[in-house]
C-alpha cells in the first residue's frame, strides 16, 4: 500500500531542520566552549532526531484528534441525533449560513468558550486533590490512546509492538478516574455513579479483551499495523479477509462492551441523568466538566478507530489514500454507534452485569474457538 504522506518522514525532516538551527547556534558558541559542540553533535544524532520526530508527529496527531476530528465527530453526533429526533439539530453558529438551515458547525466551539468562562466550583467537603485530578486523568488517557492507533501505514505516532495491549490498558484507566471522581465529590449521587462505574468496569473489561483475542489469534500479532497487514492479504474468496467476516460475533461483543466502556446510552449507568442527575459528573462545572465531556467523544472515536483496525481492514481500500479510507470507515462506525445510542433505553445495573457475564463472555469465547478453527483450517 502506497501512502501519500509519511508522517514520520515529514516529522523527521521538520525535526532535523529545527535541530539543525539549534546545533548551528551551539556550534557557533562551541568555538569558545568545547563541550557545547559535542552536545550539538549529540543533538544531531539519529536517536535524538527520532525522538524529536515522534514528538512532532505526536503533536500533529493530537492536533488532528483533539481539534479537527473532535469538532467533526461532535458535529456529526449532534446533527445526527437531531435528525433521529426529527428536529434540525444545531444550526445557528457556523461558517456558511447563519439561518435555521445553517450547519451549526461552530456550535461546539461556542459551547466550549462558554464552559471556559464558567466558574469552577469545588464542593465544600470534597477531597480537593482527587476531585481536581480525575478529569485530567480521563482527558489525558483518552488522548493518549491515539499514540498507538495508526491512521495508516505511515501516519502514526509510535509503532509499539504491543500496541493493542497499550490501547486497551490506557482506555481501562478511565473507570478508575470515574470511581475517584465519584468518591471525592462528596455527594450521594456521584458516589452511586462512581460505584456503578466500577461495577461496569469489572463486568465489561473481560468481554472486551476476550473478543480481541480472536483477532490476535488470526493475525498473530499485537501490533495494530501488523494486524491490518494481516487483513490486507487476500483470502481464498479473492477479497481481502477483513476479520469482520469470520469474527462477526466478536464484533458484536466488542461493540456492546465498547458502549459500556464509553458510558454511552444503553449502558450509561454511571451518569444516568434521570435517576442520578448526572451521576459522577454532578458536581463538576466549567471546563472540568467540559474536559470530561469532550474526552467522551475522543474515547468514542478511539473505539471506532479500534474497530476499524481490528475488524474492518484499517486503511485498506481502493483508489483513495489510506488515511482517508481509515477516516471514512471510522466515521461510519461512529455513525452506527450514535444511531444505536439514541434507539435504546437505559439498562439497569444488575441486568447489564448479567448480560455481560451470561451472554457476552460465552459469545466471545465462541468467537475465539471460531478463530482457532479458521486458523487451523488455514483459511485466514
Amino acid at each position, binding site marked *: 500500500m502506497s501512502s501519500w504522506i509519511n508522517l514520520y518522514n515529514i516529522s523527521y525532516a521538520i525535526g532535523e531542520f529545527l535541530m539543525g538551527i539549534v546545533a548551528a547556534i551551539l556550534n557557533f558558541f562551541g568555538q569558545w566552549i568545547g563541550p557545547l559542540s559535542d552536545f550539538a553533535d549529540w543533538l544531531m544524532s539519529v536517536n535524538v532526531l527520532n525522538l524529536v520526530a515522534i514528538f512532532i508527529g505526536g503533536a500533529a496527531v493530537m492536533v488532528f484528534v483533539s481539534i479537527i476530528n473532535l469538532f467533526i465527530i461532535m458535529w456529526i453526533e449532534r446533527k445526527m*441525533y437531531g435528525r433521529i429526533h426529527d428536529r434540525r439539530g444545531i444550526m445557528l453558529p457556523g461558517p456558511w449560513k447563519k439561518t435555521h438551515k445553517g450547519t451549526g458547525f461552530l456550535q461546539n466551539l461556542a459551547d466550549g468558550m462558554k464552559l471556559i468562562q464558567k466558574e469552577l466550583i469545588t464542593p465544600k467537603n470534597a477531597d480537593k486533590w482527587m476531585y481536581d485530578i480525575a478529569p485530567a486523568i480521563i482527558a489525558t488517557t483518552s488522548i493518549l490512546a491515539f499514540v498507538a492507533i495508526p491512521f495508516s501505514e505511515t501516519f502514526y505516532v509510535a509503532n509499539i509492538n504491543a500496541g493493542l495491549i497499550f490501547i486497551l490498558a490506557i482506555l481501562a484507566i478511565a473507570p478508575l478516574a470515574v470511581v475517584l471522581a465519584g468518591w471525592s465529590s462528596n455527594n450521594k449521587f456521584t458516589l452511586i455513579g462512581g460505584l456503578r462505574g466500577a461495577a461496569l468496569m469489572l463486568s465489561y473489561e473481560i468481554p472486551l479483551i476476550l473478543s480481541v483475542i480472536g483477532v490476535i489469534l488470526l493475525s498473530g500479532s499485537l501490533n495494530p499495523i501488523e494486524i491490518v497487514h494481516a487483513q490486507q492479504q487476500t483470502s481464498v474468496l479473492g477479497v481481502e479477509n477483513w476479520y469482520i467476516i469470520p469474527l462477526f460475533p466478536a464484533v458484536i461483543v466488542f461493540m456492546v462492551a465498547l458502549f459500556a466502556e464509553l458510558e454511552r446510552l*444503553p449502558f*450509561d449507568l454511571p451518569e444516568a441523568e*434521570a*435517576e442520578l442527575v448526572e451521576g459522577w459528573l454532578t458536581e463538576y462545572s466549567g471546563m472540568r466538566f467540559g474536559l470530561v465531556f469532550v474526552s467522551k467523544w475522543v474515547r468514542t472515536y478511539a473505539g471506532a478507530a479500534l474497530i476499524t483496525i481490528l475488524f474492518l481492514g484499517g486503511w485498506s481500500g481502493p483508489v483513495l489514500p489510506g488515511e482517508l479510507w481509515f477516516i471514512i470507515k471510522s466515521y461510519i462506525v461512529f455513525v452506527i454507534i450514535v444511531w444505536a445510542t*439514541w*434507539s435504546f*433505553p437505559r*439498562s439497569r*445495573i444488575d441486568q447489564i452485569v448479567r448480560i455481560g457475564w451470561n451472554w457476552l463472555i460465552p459469545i466471545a469465547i465462541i468467537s475465539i474457538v471460531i478463530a482457532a478453527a479458521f486458523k487451523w483450517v488455514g483459511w485466514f
Partner: protein
Amino acid sequence: MSDMWINMGPQHPMNHGLWNLKVRVDGEIVVESIPVLGYLHRGVEKLCEKRDYNQIIPLMDRLCYVSSLTWSHAYCISVEEMMGLEVPDRAKYLRVIALELQRVASHLMWLAAFAPDLGMFSAYLYSMREREHFLDMLQWLTGARMNQNYPRIGGVRNDMPAGFPDRCFKELDYFEKKLEQYKQLFDDNKLFRMRTMGVGVLSKEDALDLGVTGPALRGSNCPIDMRTHDPYEVYDELDWEVQVGKEGDVFSRYAVRMGEMRESCRIIRDALKKIPDGPVRVKAPLRPTGQGFRRTEDSRGEALIYVIGQGGESPYRLKIRSPIFAIMRAVPVMLKGTSVADLLAIMGSVDICIGDTDK
C-alpha cells in the same frame, strides 16, 4: 455501605412536578421512601369559596396542567349534578370529543415524560410531535392549547367549527399509524421490556386498599373505568373497550395507557359520527342550593369533585379528589425493595401531576 437518605426532589429529573421523595437506600436497593407534598399548594379549595360558579371553571383548568379539560369538566358535571341540570345531547358529544382529545394529549405527555426516565430521549420528541396534532385539534375546537376553559355549566362554550370532523379523522389516521409503529420502539424492544416487566408490582388487593385508580388500577387486572362503571356523558352509547393489564407491573401500566390512546381514537371517531344536531348550552341557575358530586375518569384516575352550594354566588365548599394524591400513598408500597433505577420506571409509570395533588 450503610444506609443513606437521598432527597429526590424538589428539583430532580425524576420529579415531573414539584415534590420531594425521600428515599433511604442500601447501596442501590430502596429500603424506605417518604413522599413529601405541598410545594405547589395554592389553596384552590379556599379560592373556590370566593369566586362565583362560572369563574371557577378557568381555575379548575389550572388544577392539572397536562389534562386541564378533564378537571374543568369534572367540576361542571358535578355542579350540574348538584343543580339537577340536563345537558343537551350535542354538548355531551362535544364534551366527549374534547375529553378524549385531551386524554390522548395527556397520555402522550406521560409517554414523553416516561421514556426519558428510562433513557429514551428520542421517544420524548416523538411523542411531543404527535401531541402537537392533538393540541391543534383542541385549539381549533376549544380555542386554547393548554387551559381550554371549554365546558360550561349546562353545556360547552362553543359549537365545533365547520370541517372539524374531516380534519380530525385525518389526524387520527396519522396517529393510529404512528401508534402501531411505536410497538417497534417499545413493545418489541428487549431492553425496554427488561426495564419494565416485573418491576413495581402492585397487587390487586393492595391497589384497591390504597385507593389507587385509573391506569394504575387497571394495570393490576381490575377492569374499573369510571366511563363504564358509572357512565357519564355518552360513554355508554359509544363503541370502545376498557383496557386491562394483567401483571400490575410497569409494563402493564404502559400497555394500558397505550391501549387507552387507541381506544380514545375509536371513541372520537364514533362520537364524531354519531353527534346529533341541537343546542350546545342551556341556562344554568346562578345561585343553586344543594350538594352533589360526580366521578369522572381523568387520564390519571378517578377525579371526583364534591360541591356544596348554599344559595350564594360561590359554592360553600368544594372538595377535590385527586387521583395522584391517593397514588402517592401507594408509592412507598410500590418502591419497597426495588432498586434506584427501577424507582424511575415506577414513578414514571404512575404519571404524576402535582397540580391537582397539591391543590
